[in-house]
């Protein structure tokens, strides 16, 4: 291999209107056929770096860059002034391709089949139809999409969508491929497919840059690590050297081998204090649910998602529910606050059957944190967001409760920020704070760990434990078995519509 495929030197990069640069002092020179991992916690600037490398964010229109980019014989020098070269995104991204974490944003939304979506980038570059056919077939074979070529992209599963986005990026044959959290929220089967694909691309001579907040198996396969902490590259070198370094720890990178990042005290508090558990706070009795119930109660439900399900959670207890994708975990959780109504059986909160109470009222005793926190937020500032509806519950005490909840998730310093401006991990913590502030008797969490770095996971663990100690019942649904074991008193598995001890 001769020299790096791309050489990037970022002295500083600042968004328009900001005074503080989001990226500083980063050097990157991935060589052909090698894997480079950029590791950093949430808000470390990984995505900004990836977009800058891949031509999604251009120096000039997107912000002010001082530094240099070198691709083949082309050397571009940026000083942050008006005379800087302007990158042609179409040409640049054909050779340095970026794949976002949210694969759906990669799609054009205007193509009706996977094959046409793959071809979109070629159409725009004026490639003749015959060549397009060949390239689409080749890329589909590479990404394992051949059987799905005629499907509507909107109907793909998360893993298939991720592979389609990858296919859209590699169809132009880029020399450098930048992958942003390619394994996030994939189940193990989906993750293996992506890892194989990366190996194949490396073998074909592509330089791959991985952006990740977890030092997972894929990151361990890298030959070079760069640790990114609040926009600055604090360390760089081979993985063996950096593993266990204080820089990695500081940056908030999740190390899967050590799940109890703050030694899981979870099991220690197991029903401490109350020698005998009182009546359960949350009870599900012979619950059954099948899609199709709600509209036509008389019709035979097509698919029974939950059947004869029993669950009792006592005060101070933390229960984790795991299960494969599509096992009905989220469906189960939505019964707890009445968003879904059971076809048979009953849901009791604090001993009262919630049938007949609207969700908005059940919410006074049940707090549910959703998978997509952005949809749960609607106010102008973080403080107003947490304070929403508190006055009715606590009266004059409301302001203190709001501040306490913000402090619990480490967002006190952002009280005046707009929720939409926070990074997605902070949005998740803010949504958690809005639920915590109401001090519900039951706390229900849907995949709470997704997108959280080590610091975020620590805050989440502490908040969950504090809630349990206060005497609330906690139910969480997660695909992260390690986290479930470390935090929960009981881990249950949902399969075949029933719960059993995992």
């Amino acid at each position, binding site marked *: 291999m001769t020299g790096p495929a791309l050489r990037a030197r970022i002295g500083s990069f600042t968004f328009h209107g900001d005074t503080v640069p989001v990226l500083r002092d980063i050097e990157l020179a991935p060589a052909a056929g090698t894997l480079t991992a950029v590791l950093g916690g949430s808000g470390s600037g990984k995505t900004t770096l990836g977009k800058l490398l891949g031509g999604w*964010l251009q120096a000039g229109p997107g912000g002010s860059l001082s530094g240099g980019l070198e691709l083949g014989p082309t050397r571009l020098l940026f000083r942050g002034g008006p005379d800087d070269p302007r990158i042609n995104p179409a040409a640049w991204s054909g050779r340095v391709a970026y794949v976002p974490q949210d694969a759906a944003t990669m799609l*054009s939304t205007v193509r009706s089949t996977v*094959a046409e979506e793959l071809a979109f980038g070629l159409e725009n570059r004026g490639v003749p139809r015959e060549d397009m056919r060949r390239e689409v077939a080749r890329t589909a074979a590479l990404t394992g999409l051949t059987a799905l070529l005629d499907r509507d992209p909107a109907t793909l599963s998360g893993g298939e969508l991720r592979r389609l986005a990858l296919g859209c990026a590699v169809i132009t044959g880029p020399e450098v491929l930048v992958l942003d959290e390619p394994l996030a929220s994939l189940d193990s089967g989906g993750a293996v497919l992506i890892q194989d694909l990366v190996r194949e691309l490396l073998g074909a001579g592509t330089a791959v840059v991985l952006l990740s907040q977890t030092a997972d198996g894929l990151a361990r396969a890298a030959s070079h690590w760069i640790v990114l902490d609040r926009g600055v590259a604090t360390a760089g070198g081979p993985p063996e050297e950096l593993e266990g370094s204080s820089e990695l720890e500081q940056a908030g990178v999740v190390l899967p081998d050590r799940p109890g990042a703050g030694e899981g005290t979870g099991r220690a508090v197991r029903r401490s204090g109350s020698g005998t558990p009182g009546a359960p706070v949350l009870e599900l009795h012979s619950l059954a649910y099948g899609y199709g119930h709600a509209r036509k109660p008389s019709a035979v439900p097509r698919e029974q998602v939950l059947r004869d399900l029993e669950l009792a959670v006592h005060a101070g207890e933390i229960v984790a529910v795991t299960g494969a994708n599509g096992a009905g975990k989220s469906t189960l959780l939505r019964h707890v606050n009445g968003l879904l109504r059971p076809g048979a059986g009953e849901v009791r909160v604090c001993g009262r059957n919630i049938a007949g109470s609207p969700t908005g009222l059940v919410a006074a005793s049940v707090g549910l944190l959703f998978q997509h926190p952005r949809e749960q937020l609607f106010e102008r500032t973080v403080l107003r967001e947490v304070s*929403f509806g508190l006055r009715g519950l606590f009266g004059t005490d409301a302001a203190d409760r709001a501040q306490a909840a913000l402090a619990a998730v480490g967002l006190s310093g952002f009280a005046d920020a707009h929720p939409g401006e926070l990074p997605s991990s902070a949005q998740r913590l803010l949504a958690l704070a809005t639920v915590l502030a109401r001090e519900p008797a039951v706390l229900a969490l849907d995949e709470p760990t997704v997108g959280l770095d080590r610091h975020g996971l620590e805050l989440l663990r502490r908040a969950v434990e504090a809630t349990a100690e206060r005497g609330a019942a906690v139910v969480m649904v997660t695909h992260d078995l390690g986290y479930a074991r470390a935090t929960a008193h009981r881990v249950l598995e949902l399969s075949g519509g029933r719960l059993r001890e995992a």
Partner: protein
Amino acid sequence: MRARLHPLTALTGAACTAVVTTAAASWVFSVAVTLAVAVLAARAGVARQVLPAAAVILAPLCVSLLVLHGLFFPEGQTALASWGPARVTAEGLRFALELATRTAACVLALLLFSFTVSVPDLVSALAERKLPPQFVFVLASTLALLPAIAGRLVRIRQAQEARGLVLRGGLLSRLGAVRLQMVPLVLGLIEDAGSRAQALDARGFGGGAPRTSYREVPDPPAQRWFRAAALLAAAGAVVIRLALSWPPGVQP
């Protein structure tokens, strides 16, 4: 089953039908067109979608026309009945009939097109005709976004109910709820649009280079001839109408 219509053939047919009907200005012709379109819709198997959609649009318009012209038509001579200021005239009823049937014919023809056309084929056909790709993008993207919005609104409402938002009957509280739902909806859509713009540019959308099309839409010569004939007929109808009723006092 007939060979599939090229989307531009269907579009030309529907548009020319609407133009000719407007130019003809005869309720008999309009009713004939309406019936013909209804038969075509039934044969295409979309009558169950087209007719209710048309009814939702046309019913309020027709009621409004009937009340307006049936009761208040000061130009009318032949009074059939009168209550105070309201006067039912033969001319008014005829005027309402003319306009209602004309609008019905045009709406049905165009709706038949929308409900039968394959949007991907239309998009690809428009792109091949060198229409600005931006126009094609806005059309296709809107049609793709619309059904997704409903699901998004449901998710937002559920997330907010889970935070203790209770929807009550009062007007003010409902307006407030609409505001609370609009903010995350608009914000989410605009954020998605921002990253989509970057992705589109990276995939070469913004470049001015000539484009090609992956999807092939067959366009048999017979359909080209049909389109030319339909356009000629529509142009002829317009010219005749303009010539016949060119208003006196205005020189062409």
